[in-house]
């Protein structure tokens, strides 16, 4: 195999095809901090702490999943790299302080260890509404305190890729992302045994043994059901379509419906829940017969979207996020619906209404008040 010659921090190094920058650096004894990269797990590239500078590239690249290429000149500790890395850790601390800062779990937490290694000062900003969840202690094997979770997904991947189960799934989206069990219930699953693999792979104190400890050092020998034989990343092309159909038919996607879909596709219900909670137009709680979505993005906002919101509130007597008591209407605010030339605009079910005025809104809503189950109307 052809040798690939590279330079890391001014030192020549060589590697083979398929090797990542992180592998090559470790060969030289150059440590690059990383949280979501663990031996035995496929790279995920989500924590971004391992970013390095490669000459000729516009942006920094993550060392954990960037393959080395002939002649690459890499800096792992330039000013640009260390400043960026510090702010990433600062962001993690900002959304993750509280419990671990206060108790002895801090020393068990790799985020705090990396923060002290690379000299990150206490964050200059704190997230006002950090992710906060009750501690889960129902499982006899794992104590979950997700307020401490940094969403590196090591537990999700370790359970899947090392143990061969699929206890955890990613759900929701953006800042509200969360590692869930089934349809977001506390961990208490028969399939979860005392293997401790997720605890060992968790870089923070989000996952601990029930006594609040977290052994470090030697990895526990995982009691697996044998090497993974299934597909790591199941392909499920019909899933989104089935969820959309269910949403249309029932007005929302219930836990029962998700379980049925999961069974029919040989998926874990947690993964179905993860998809259902990702998309804004899918709802896991009941909706009214008609869903009103008012665009609140800039082009509509500046053309008095607030007037539309006020008019709908007045007409229906509900606030965004609520459903009328007769179950006729639900009311949501949404991001740009691509009708900026007709601002302010809204969707009722899938019908677009633009250039709205209070009078127009009143007559539109009147027409829906008289209809029966309009979401079942033909396309």
């Amino acid at each position, binding site marked *: 195999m052809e040798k690939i010659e590279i330079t890391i921090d001014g030192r020549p190094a060589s590697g083979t095809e398929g090797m990542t920058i992180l592998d090559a650096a470790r060969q030289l004894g150059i440590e690059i901090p990383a949280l979501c990269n663990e031996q035995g797990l496929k790279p995920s590239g989500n924590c971004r702490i391992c970013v390095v500078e490669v000459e000729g590239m516009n942006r920094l690249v993550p060392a954990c999943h960037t393959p080395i290429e002939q002649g690459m000149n890499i800096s792992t500790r330039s000013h640009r790299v260390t*400043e960026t890395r510090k702010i990433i850790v600062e962001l993690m601390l900002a959304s993750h302080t509280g419990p671990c800062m206060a108790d002895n779990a801090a020393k068990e937490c790799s985020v705090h260890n990396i923060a002290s290694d690379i000299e990150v000062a206490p964050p200059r900003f704190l997230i006002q509404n950090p992710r906060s969840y009750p501690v889960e202690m129902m499982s006899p094997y794992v104590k979950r305190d997700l307020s401490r979770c940094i969403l590196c997904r090591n537990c999700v991947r370790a359970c899947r890729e090392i143990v061969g189960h699929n206890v955890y799934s990613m759900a929701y989206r953006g800042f509200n992302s969360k590692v869930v069990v089934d349809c977001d219930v506390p961990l208490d699953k028969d399939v979860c045994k005392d293997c401790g693999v997720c605890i060992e792979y968790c870089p923070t104190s989000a996952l601990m043994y029930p006594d609040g400890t977290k052994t470090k050092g030697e990895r526990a020998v995982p009691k697996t059901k044998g090497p993974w034989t299934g597909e790591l990343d199941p392909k499920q092309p019909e899933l989104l379509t089935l969820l959309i159909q269910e949403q249309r038919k029932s007005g929302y996607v219930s836990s029962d419906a998700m379980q049925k879909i999961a069974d029919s596709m040989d998926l874990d219900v947690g993964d179905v829940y993860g998809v259902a909670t990702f998309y804004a137009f899918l709802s896991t709680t009941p909706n009214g017969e008609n869903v009103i979505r008012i665009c609140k993005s800039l082009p509509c906002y*500046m053309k008095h979207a607030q007037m539309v919101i006020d008019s709908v509130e007045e007409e229906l007597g509900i606030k965004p996020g609520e459903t009328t008591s007769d179950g006729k209407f639900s009311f949501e605010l949404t991001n740009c619906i*691509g009708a900026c030339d007709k601002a302010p605009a809204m969707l009722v079910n899938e019908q677009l209404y633009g250039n709205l005025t209070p009078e127009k809104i009143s007559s539109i809503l009147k027409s829906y008040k008289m209809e029966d189950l309009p979401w079942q109307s033909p396309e």
Partner: protein
Amino acid sequence: MAESRIILKNCEVIDPADIGTYIEKDGFKALEKARTSMSQESVIDEVKSSGLRGRGGAGFPCGVKWELAANADGSEKYLICNADEGEMGTFKDRYLLEYDPFSLIEGIAIAAYAIGAVKAYIYLRGEYRYLLSTIRGAIGQAVEKGYLDGLDIVLQEGAGAYICGEETALMNSLEGKRGEARFKPPFPPVSGLFEKPTIINNVETLAAIPRIILNGAEWFSNIGTEKSKGTKIFSVSGDVSRPGIYELPMGSSLKQLVVDLAGATDIKIIQVGGAAGRLLPYNWLDTALSFETVLGAGAVTVFDSSRDMIDVVFKTIEFLAEESCGLCTPCREGSQVLFEILERLRNGEGEQQDTDVLEDVANTMAEASLCGLGQGTAVPVLDSLNFFKQDYKNRIEQSLYIKSLLG
């Protein structure tokens, strides 16, 4: 100055429900020409020498991308039409799909022929569900006429996620998964949908293909600037008297678009390229719109002097923060931090260090985010700090003064 409607030539001219009216306007002649008198390579060469670049915002040379997929190993290849335009202020694809779905279908058929795909997908954003029947009807008529022989076009609707306009997130969504971005490499032309070589093109890009094949690469490349060939469709909104869709040669000035055509009379800020695009002051009006300067997917929103700059940035970041997929740390946490700081500033509760923190977080997102959404979130913040720093300074001073009065 007048528009030059090349891509939009059939819009509001033909009947989108009647393929006959499209055929009368030279419809499907380009497809016939490609299939009967051109090899796959020569179609790709024609697109390459036309200089056509991706209209979704990234501007990657279209023919080069096709060539990568055509040369990739394996017989199973996919073509995806990205009809998930979610960029704030963008509605050009909606207009094309509504008034001329046939140009898109013909473009898809030519592209599929060129790269050797037997299956193509149209991923339509959930917000545009009301267009499904128009598109479905157009595909049905094209099938009936035999134009799509050997090609299966699947129409997939999205369910409300801006991130799915990002090509790797879109592929995840098509695979039925959470629409999270994937890291690259591998790049889609090598390993994309179902790990097969995949080409993803924007609606406008594909709709340009029949024109290029029929009229020739030279005709197309004679329009536009050195590095941006052809025309561009713009979506104009905000403080203008004639919001709407305009098609202009690449290199036309912002002034021609927003003042001459859309009728803006009072301009403080121009947002070009949507939420993840540029926030520019009025003195950029003479800038030529092109990939070399500013463009994005062609969304242009005008803000007049009554608008508060910090409010504009806040609403922009609110959008991006809500649409972050949540996979990588800089975007997931960074956009939330930006959102909270801007919300405070907007409410008159600014603090001295706010601009420094905004800049640091934005730079980190630009450097280290996994995909274009996180990287792009930095742009409006950095632009506003660059062009409108005084607005921030004033707001912070006011905030501190009021705070001091309150003790």
